[in-house]
C-alpha cells in the first residue's frame, strides 16, 4: 500500500496514522512540513500551492516504486496540500511504516528529498509588498511587474 493524495483541506495526520496502522509494522515515521510565516524577517501574509495533479500522481507512483526497491517499504502515505495554507499548518505529510526503523526513516527522508526535486507542485509566498514563487533550492522568483526577484536559501 502506497498512496498519494492532493487536498484542499487541512491534513489530518492522526487520521492518516490510523490508516497506516496495521499489525506487523514495528516502526512508523511521520514527516510534516509546516509552513512558516516569515522569510528573512519579511512577513508572509498568504502562502499557496498549486500542482499539476495528474503528473504529480504519475511521478509519485514512480517514486513509490523507487522507495520500495531501495528500502523495502511498501507502506507509504503522502498527502500534499494545495491552495491557501495558513501559517503553522502542514503543507505535506509523509508516513512510512516498516517492520524496522532504519527502513522507515530512510523511506520517509528519501521520499521528501525526491518530492522536492520532482513533484510538480509550486509554492507562492505573498508579502505585504509583493509575491514570489519559492523553489525547492530556496530561490525566490518574482514575476509580477512591481516585484524584484529575491534570492535566499530555504
Amino acid at each position, binding site marked *: 500500500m502506497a498512496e498519494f493524495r492532493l487536498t484542499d483541506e487541512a491534513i489530518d495526520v492522526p487520521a492518516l496514522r490510523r490508516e497506516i496502522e496495521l499489525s506487523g509494522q514495528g516502526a512508523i515515521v511521520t514527516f510534516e512540513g509546516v509552513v512558516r510565516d516569515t522569510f528573512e524577517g519579511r512577513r508572509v501574509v498568504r502562502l499557496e500551492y498549486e500542482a499539476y495533479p495528474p503528473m504529480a500522481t504519475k511521478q509519485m507512483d514512480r517514486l513509490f516504486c523507487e522507495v520500495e526497491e531501495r528500502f523495502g517499504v511498501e507502506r507509504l502515505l503522502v498527502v500534499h496540500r494545495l491552495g491557501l495554507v495558513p501559517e503553522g499548518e502542514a503543507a505535506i505529510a509523509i508516513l512510512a511504516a516498516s517492520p524496522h526503523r532504519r527502513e522507515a526513516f530512510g523511506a520517509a527522508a528519501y521520499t521528501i528529498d525526491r518530492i*522536492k526535486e520532482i513533484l510538480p507542485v509550486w509554492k507562492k509566498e505573498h508579502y505585504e509588498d509583493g509575491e514570489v514563487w519559492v523553489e525547492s533550492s530556496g530561490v525566490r522568483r518574482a514575476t509580477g511587474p512591481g516585484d524584484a526577484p529575491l534570492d535566499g536559501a530555504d
Partner: protein
Amino acid sequence: MKIQIKAFAAIREVLGASELELELVEGARVQDALEALSAEHPALREIPCGFGIAHEYVGPDHPLKDEDELALLPPVGGG
C-alpha cells in the same frame, strides 16, 4: 501541427494563461515550442523550464507530434 501548452506557476503568469494552443511545423521538438513562446514572451527566457508530456518529464529534444499536450514546468517548490 497543433499542440496544447499547459503552463504552471511563474510560467503561467508570464504567459498570462494556463492553457494555450500552439501551431508548429512538422518535426518540431520541445525546444522549438519554448522558442516560439519566448519570442512572444521574452520574460520566459528568465525562468528555467522543465517539460512534461503525458505526465512524464521529457528533455528539450523530445519530438512533438500533433495534439501533444506539453507542460511547461518551472522549478518545483512543493513539500
